[in-house]
C-alpha cells in the first residue's frame, strides 16, 4: 500500500489571494514523484479541524478575508497549538502568518487577535512593502520570493526568525528578520510562491512530515535544474 500524506489548506477561499496554491502543488508533486499518495483537504469556516493532517498550509489574504476567518481560527487555536507542539510542519504566508502571531494592530488602533503560535505582533505600516526579496535561512539556505504587505511584524525576544533578509524589507524593514519559526511551524512574507523556486525548503517540509508519520525517510534526488535557474534569475531581478 502506498504511503499517504495529508495536506491541509487553511481557508483557501478567503486566504489564497495570490499564487499560494503553488506551495500545495509543489509539495503534492514532489511527494507523488517519490511514490507517495497525497490527500488534499481544506479547512473552511465552521468545519471541524482535522487534527490528523500531516502538513498545514495557509496563504495571504486581504483584510476582508482576515476578518472573516478570525473567529473560526481562534476557536481552533488549541488544536493548532497542539499540532505545532507535536511537530506538524506548517507554512503560513503573509496574512495567515500575521494571524499566527499574537495580534494585528490596525491603523485605527484596533487589536485583531491572532492565535499566538508565534510570539510576534503586527502593526499596520505607513506604506506597502512590495518587491522581490532574498533571504537566507540557516536550515534552508538562500530563499527568493516576492513580498507584498503593509503590516510590520515584530518578534519578541525569544521568538526565532525564519530567515535573515539579504535584500528587501522582510518583517518590518528594520531588523533584517524575515518570518518566524516555532517548532516546525514557519511563518513568512514570501510569496512567489515560495516553495517552487526554493525546492530545498519544500523537501525539508516533506522530510519532517514523512519522518514524523512513518519513522523513516527515503527520498530520491529530483531534477531541479529548472527550479535552480528560476531561483537564480529571480535573485537578479530589480526590487
Amino acid at each position, binding site marked *: 500500500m502506498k504511503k499517504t500524506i495529508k495536506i491541509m489548506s487553511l481557508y483557501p477561499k478567503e486566504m489564497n489571494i495570490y499564487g499560494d*496554491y503553488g506551495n500545495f502543488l509543489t509539495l503534492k508533486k514532489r511527494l507523488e514523484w517519490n511514490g507517495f499518495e497525497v490527500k488534499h483537504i481544506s479547512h473552511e469556516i465552521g468545519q471541524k479541524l482535522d487534527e490528523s493532517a500531516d502538513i498545514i498550509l495557509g496563504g495571504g489574504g486581504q483584510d476582508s478575508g482576515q476578518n472573516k476567518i478570525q473567529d473560526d481560527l481562534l476557536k481552533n487555536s488549541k488544536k493548532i497549538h497542539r499540532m505545532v507542539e507535536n511537530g506538524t510542519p506548517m507554512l503560513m504566508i503573509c496574512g495567515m502568518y500575521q494571524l499566527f502571531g499574537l495580534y494585528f494592530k490596525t491603523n485605527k488602533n484596533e487589536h485583531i487577535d491572532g492565535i499566538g503560535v508565534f510570539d510576534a505582533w503586527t502593526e499596520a505600516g505607513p506604506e506597502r512593502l512590495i518587491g522581490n526579496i532574498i533571504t537566507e535561512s540557516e536550515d534552508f539556505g538562500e530563499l527568493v520570493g516576492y513580498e507584498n504587505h503593509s503590516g510590520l511584524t515584530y518578534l519578541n525576544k525569544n521568538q526565532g526568525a525564519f530567515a535573515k533578509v539579504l535584500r528587501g524589507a522582510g518583517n518590518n524593514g528594520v531588523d533584517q528578520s524575515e518570518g518566524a519559526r516555532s517548532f516546525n511551524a514557519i511563518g513568512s512574507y514570501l510569496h*512567489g510562491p515560495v516553495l517552487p523556486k526554493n525546492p530545498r525548503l519544500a523537501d525539508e517540509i516533506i522530510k519532517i512530515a514523512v519522518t514524523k508519520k512513518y519513522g523513516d525517510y527515503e527520498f530520491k534526488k529530483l531534477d531541479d535544474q529548472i527550479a535552480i*535557474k528560476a531561483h537564480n*534569475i529571480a535573485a537578479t531581478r530589480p526590487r
Partner: protein
Amino acid sequence: MKKTTVFLGKAVRNVARLRGGGSALPGAIVEKIDPDFLKEVLNNLPYGVAVVSGTNGKTTTTKIIVELLESQGLKVFTNRTGSNFTRGVISEIIGEIQGGCFDFDIAVLELDEAYAARFVDQVQPNFSLILNVFRDQLDRFGEIDKTAKLLEKVAKKTKKEVILNREDRLVSEISNQIKTPVAFFGHAEKLAENFPVDDETHTTSKRKNNQKHPATVELIGLKNRRAEYQIDGKKYLATLKLSGSHNALNGAAALAIVQAILGEKFDATKNVKALAKVEPAFGRGEIIEIGKTKLELLLVKNPSGFQSALRSQYKKSASTMIAINDQYADGRDMSWLWDVDFHELKKVTAISGIRAYDMALRLQYDDVDFKHVATDLKKSLKYFLSKHSSEDKQIFCTYTAMLAIRKILAKSHDVRRVL
C-alpha cells in the same frame, strides 16, 4: 480653449517629435500653463466623456465601442496610443486640434483603475463602463478590494449612466453604493463555465450566487465565434472576428454602453452587425502572416486572462510558445502563473522571456512537455519559427514581451504597425 495653450502645445509636440518620441512632453507643458485645459475641451463635447476601466479587456472593449459609435456616424476621440496618463491624453488632444477646433462628438477613454480614479476628479464622465476586477498586478494597487474601491469612485463621479458587469461580484456590488443610474451586461447562466471567476479558484465550495440583476445586454449563446445577444428582450446573432469567450462578453459590455450613450437613437441590429466586423486590438489575438502560416499573438497578464485564453483561444493544432517578462508593465511578481491551470496545453515548443524558467517550472508541475527554454526572445523566436514550419503558431505573451516580439518580427516579416 486658449489658443496660446494649443499653439504652445503643438510647438512642443513638433520639437518633441524631432527629438524622437516624448509623446507626453507637450501634455506636461500644457498641463502646467493651463490646468483646466483637459476639463474644458472634454466637457464641451456633445456626448461628453465615456470611461472604460477594469482589469481585463479594456483595450479590446474600447476599440469595439469606438467602432460601434463610428459606424453610427459619430466622430470619436480615443486614447489610441494606450497612453493612460493625463499628459498623454492632453498630448493626443493637441495632436487632434485643427485650426483651434477639437471636432469630436465624444471621447472614449481607456483608463486603468488607479488612474481612472484620479482622472474623474478632473473630468467627470457622462458614462462609465466597469468590466471586471480580477487579481492582477497586486504589486501596484495593493489589494483587490482597494481596486474595487477605486472603480466605485469612478462610478460615483459618473454623471449619466454607469454600466456594470453583473457577473463580477465586486463590480455588481458597486450598484449598491451609487446614486447614478446603472445598467448591467452579463451572460446566461449556462455559459458560466466559459468565464473563470477568481472566487472559485482552488476551493471546493461554490461561489455565492450574485444578486441577479436584469441585464440590458446579455450574451445568451456562444459557439466558437458565433455569439447570440439578447438586447431588451430581442435576440441577435453575430459571427465575430474576435476570438475568445471573454471577447464575446466584451461585445455585450460595448453594446450596453453604446446603448446608454445613444439612447433612443440606438439601433441594435446595426450595432450587432458592426460588432461582428471589429478586428482584434494590438496584440490581442492579432494575427501575423509568416509565409503560408499564421502566427497569433495572445496577450496574457493575469490568471483569469491566461485561463480564458487557454480555454477559448488555444488551438491544439498550432505550435505554442510562451513568453513571460517581469518588467514593471508586466508586473514583477510571478505568483500569478501558479493560479493558472495549464493542463489544457498539449505541448509547448518554446518558452522565453526574462522569466522563462519560472514558466518552465510552472509547466513542470502541471506535467506539460516543453522543449526549448531561453531568456533571449530573439533566439527563442528563431527556434520557434524554424520548428513545425507548416503549422500555425500561437504565442502567449506578457505586455513587454509582446512589444519585443512584434519588433523582432517586424524586421523580417510584414507586421502591421499599430502604434
